[in-house]
């Protein structure tokens, strides 16, 4: 008796495991259903009841979205369902028609996304910057020698084989890190190069535990700073700037796409009011803004 129920559970678990691995991320699947309902229930209502925003973990984990999205919902009556994943997966969600709008930070990928017909038009929204972190005291001495030269700093780490924790998850931050390695002319590999395959938060915890160096967006670092024995060792390099773009997904991809809701979102996030909301976020909690709005006035 006991065994058979257990067996049943295990089979269900196993099947569920494969289903989640086989499909696109499970969250959009469930939300698509809700969205379809919204459309069929209220066809007259222009924008529909909700949109799905596929974005990077940084906008979610930094608390920015929680701070600004209620304003959008208050103004338009449209609920935003946020799917926070890596930039690669966020764009993929758009390609598969599993979301209505994307807010990500990998410019060349975004431009390709539009060029390939998956997105309508790309707009700059805001930027933040990446920083290199090291253990307090900076044992590798990056601060002294390469304070504003990220490529030279990474090169120094690779030469001294100092432990560096990489996101290793194909996220926007990971791609940025790889760009800088490429700029330094190094293909990082070896015991000292730790490929975590996790989000920014877990990677910061890991670097903290290992007394290692890592690269992060400033927002996540500021949000977690209190619990970390890590300090900024390299910042301000032009190559460390991180531009976010917003793109409405091309409604031709799928009939489930809420195009009007998506365009309303794009208009809203580019509006002067929202832009100042973005610029104010973080000042109260961290003493400095986390994102710098730079949408071009339309």
């Amino acid at each position, binding site marked *: 008796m*006991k*065994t058979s129920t*257990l*067996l049943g559970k*295990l*089979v269900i*678990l*196993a099947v569920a*495991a*494969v289903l*989640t*691995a*086989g*499909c*696109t*991320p499970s969250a959009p699947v469930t939300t698509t259903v809700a969205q379809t309902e919204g459309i069929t229930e209220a066809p007259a209502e222009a924008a529909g009841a909700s949109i799905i925003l596929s974005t990077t973990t940084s906008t979610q984990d930094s608390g920015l979205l929680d701070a600004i999205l209620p304003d959008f919902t208050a103004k338009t009556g449209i609920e935003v369902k946020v799917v926070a*994943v*890596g930039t*690669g*997966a966020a764009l*993929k969600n758009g390609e*598969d028609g599993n979301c209505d709008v994307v807010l990500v930070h990998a410019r060349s990928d975004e431009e390709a996304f539009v060029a390939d017909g998956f997105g309508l038009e790309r707009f700059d929204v805001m930027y933040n910057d990446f920083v290199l972190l090291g253990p307090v005291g900076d044992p590798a001495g990056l601060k002294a020698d390469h304070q504003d030269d990220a490529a030279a700093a990474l090169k120094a780490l690779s030469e001294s084989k100092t432990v560096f924790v990489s996101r*290793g*998850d*194909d996220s926007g931050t990971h791609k940025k890190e790889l760009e800088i390695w490429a700029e330094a002319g190094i293909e990082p590999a070896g015991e000292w190069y*730790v*490929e*975590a*395959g*996790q989000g920014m938060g*877990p990677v910061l915890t*890991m670097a*903290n*535990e*290992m*007394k290692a160096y890592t690269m992060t967006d400033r927002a996540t670092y500021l949000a977690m700073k209190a619990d970390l024995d890590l300090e900024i060792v390299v910042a301000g390099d032009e190559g460390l700037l991180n531009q976010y773009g917003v793109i409405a997904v091309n409604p031709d991809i799928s009939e489930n796409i809420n195009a009007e809701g998506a365009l309303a979102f794009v208009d809203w996030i580019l509006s002067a009011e929202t832009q100042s909301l973005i610029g104010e976020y973080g000042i109260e909690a961290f003493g400095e803004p986390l994102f710098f709005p730079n949408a071009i006035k339309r």
Partner: protein
Amino acid sequence: MSVIADGFQQAFQLIVSGDGEMLAIMFRSLTVSLSAVGLASLIGLPLAAWLCHVRLPGRRAFELIVFNLMSLPTVVIGLIVMLTLSRSGPLGSLGLIYTAKAMIIAQFILTLPIVVGLSYDLMRRNGKRVLELAVTLGAGSGKKTRLLLREFTPGLALSSITAFSRAIAEVGAVMIVGGNIRHHTRVLTTAITLNNSMGEYGMAIALGLILLVLAFGVNSAIYFLSGKHRENRT
């Protein structure tokens, strides 16, 4: 739909070509979970047998506790082990965080109550005759424990295998304490999670299929073992 079709095609290519990283991840999964369950069985099975026949005040309370521990959520185990092994934690000086050893510890904690709970339940329900026989033979505590273990070997193996299937399929604890580090602590479940989030569905499906085959293999073993077990007893 093409995502799924492409994914499966890629997955089969990976499996057929015996992709090195994929195989390494599979062996790491097996090593970690087998070690954890091995340790849990080594300690848990004799412990359960001993607890069956020893005078135990508050037996009800003990049974309730073990029964509840059998459903410890893996993320909670991960959190506890992480906090214990982290640099600032009580056992931080051991330097075990983000190692395979930490993952084995977490899965040991996960599987020990399962091994103890299932095997204790089995021997407590069906062990009366064996224990009466043991008393007539004048057996001491150690002898009684050994007799129980010998008599119920197939059922005990079953409880270990059940624990193994739970261990190999869990992602919460190994993700937290192992950190999913490539070439070091990345196992089937954490690799599937990562590849899914990267949109690398081919690799995710390949690893998922391997995990399925392992899980089904284990369940088949449970099926046959329990079948044989029943035959022996009638």
